């Protein structure tokens, strides 16, 4: 097993005819993901990369039994694309798009509250991968190896860095999820930790956090109370100055809240080992 995606996931790409959409759809197909189609309004009936294009998500769901959608549309249209996917019955929506206004995401979240069967990952995330089975996102497939470590992260390249060092040290991943760097994201650490806890393939968990918000503090409390598996954490931003947005919209220390120190302390109190630098993660996992 792995979590959320697997060999039988029927994946569509919203915005498949765009530059990034088509590139990563191609990468996903090459990785072996079961991409069953794409959506671009006005281009229904055409095809790309050997898969059909639909005018709406609903058509893709009806005709191709799509259950996972990857969103690549521009930021002005991303929240509407999420809503379309949710209304059409897509169960896992992965939104790569960066730059979605946070108040639009608040409304999307409020809307999804009455659709308990729909899970959103992102926005502003690299997606997720269950190595050897399915990749939905922009993660570089070749650095992953099937294995028993569940990885969850707010970051993109930092995740690749740590996964690479895990692989070098002989570890592999059950599933690796980038939950996104925005202040408001669909799936958080706790959701993911809970799924990893239930997943028989996952034996240990790596959590990659960063400054801003209190998602890590809450995750620490949750781990202490619920997680039976070994967890190793890394928090980026020990050297970040306050009140500055460190690239990610969510990575900001504001009014003394959201510091790396506070997060590290929370993990230590929860009995979770925290790596000082990325390369230490593999050491602590051993």
């Amino acid at each position, binding site marked *: 097993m792995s979590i959320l995606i697997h060999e039988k996931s029927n994946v569509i790409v919203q915005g498949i005819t765009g530059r990034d959409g088509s590139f990563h759809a191609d990468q996903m197909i090459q990785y072996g993901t079961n991409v069953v189609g794409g959506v671009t309004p006005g281009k229904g009936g055409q095809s790309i990369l050997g898969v059909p294009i639909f005018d709406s998500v609903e058509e893709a769901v009806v005709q191709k039994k799509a259950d996972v959608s990857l969103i690549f549309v521009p930021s002005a249209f991303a929240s509407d694309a999420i809503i379309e996917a949710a209304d059409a019955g897509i169960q896992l929506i992965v939104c790569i798009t960066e730059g979605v206004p946070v108040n639009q995401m608040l409304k999307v979240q409020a809307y999804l509250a009455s659709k308990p069967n729909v899970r959103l990952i992102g926005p502003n995330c690299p997606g997720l991968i269950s190595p050897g089975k399915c990749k939905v996102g922009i993660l570089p497939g070749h650095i992953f190896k099937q294995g028993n470590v569940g990885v969850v992260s707010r970051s993109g390249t930092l995740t690749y*860095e740590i996964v690479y060092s895990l692989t070098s040290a002989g570890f592999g991943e059950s599933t690796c999820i980038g939950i996104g760097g925005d202040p408001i994201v669909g799936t958080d650490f706790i959701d993911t930790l809970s799924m990893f806890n239930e997943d028989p393939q996952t034996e240990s968990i790596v959590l990659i956090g960063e400054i801003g918000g*209190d998602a890590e503090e809450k995750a620490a409390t949750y781990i202490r109370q619920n997680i039976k598996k070994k967890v190793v954490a890394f928090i980026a931003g020990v*050297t970040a100055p306050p009140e500055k947005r460190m*690239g990610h919209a969510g990575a900001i220390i504001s009014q003394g809240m959201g510091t790396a120190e506070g997060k590290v302390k929370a993990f230590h109190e929860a009995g979770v080992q925290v790596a*000082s630098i990325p390369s230490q993660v593999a050491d602590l996992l051993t």
Partner: protein
Amino acid sequence: MKLLEYQAKEVFRSADIRTPNESMVTTPQDAVKIANESVGYPCVIKAQVPVGGRGKAGGVKVANNADDVLTLASQILGMSIKGCIVDKILVSQAISIHNEYYLSVVLHRASKKPMIIMSPSGGVDIEEISKNRPEMIFKEEYDFILGFKDYTLRRTYQKMFQNQEEKVSYKEFKGFLQKLVNVYFEKDATLVEINPLIVHNKECMALDAKILLDDNGLEFHPEFEKYVTSNAEETLQEKMAREANLTYISLDGNIACMVNGAGLAMATMDTIKHFGGSPANFLDIGGSSNPEKVVNALRIIASNPNVNAILINIFGGITRCDDIAQGFREGLEKVKFDLPISCRIIGTNDEKARTILKEINIPVTTDMDEAVQNVVKMAKGG
């Protein structure tokens, strides 16, 4: 992005939120003219700067007549507050105050809703209230379907105005909060703050105003374009980066770094510190492989006189390492500097990249820790 007080108040007035009679001016002469012709006396001269603490720094003064205005406006204009030179002042009607309230609408990450934060003990920073009088801070969630819930808001209303000489009706209070929330959504804000709020003639009035805008929402608000450059408290390097569309933040150290990805960039800074060095900046060149970005990035980090050494840390995924190396070669031709460079490149097309870098004599490693340890040594003159 942060709006200055006078800009935030323009937004307020267009949303039917009352403010004192006032105007922004840039010269002492205009200040006198405005005070004489429309604002009247006494009036308040307020420095317009994007940093807090202007009151303590002498940037807010009361004037009782035209002479006062001329003197005080001349004093405040040109003043430096936390490194910001005052080039705009607000001439504002002075209003008698019974009590100062605090009121804000802020993005609440935990509840995924806007939160309204209120206190009858305003006029000082909210951090100060929450430290000294936490029992005087009241919070209300804003629900997307229902708006305010009367059963909680009525209780908060009573706590806000009990024992107050002058108060507003519950209906007026709720309507005022709704206007503030409307500004929050319509302008894609993440914070709308009034401190102090006062009650004047049984109506709420904003004596000060602070609005933080969501940078992701700016593209939908052309009305704020004119403010984007004028409000930034930024270093030369940050300005260059903004113009080149790069995310750069100045730091105190002497090791410049150029990284792809925000998380990895932060982790690189942390690793520099871990090995005893001190980063000079945060710089994310992003996921694209455009060589021009690399040239610009090099120009920016090299322009910082504090820098002793440069660290390149690239984990190629979507980013193609050879494009980075190519940009680097171009950059070294175009940008003149004499600084040691430590380079770590790994991932997509890294072999090609290493070949290019070898041609221009840049040593390359695939190990991040090794590259960081090298640059720390370099920065120490080692």
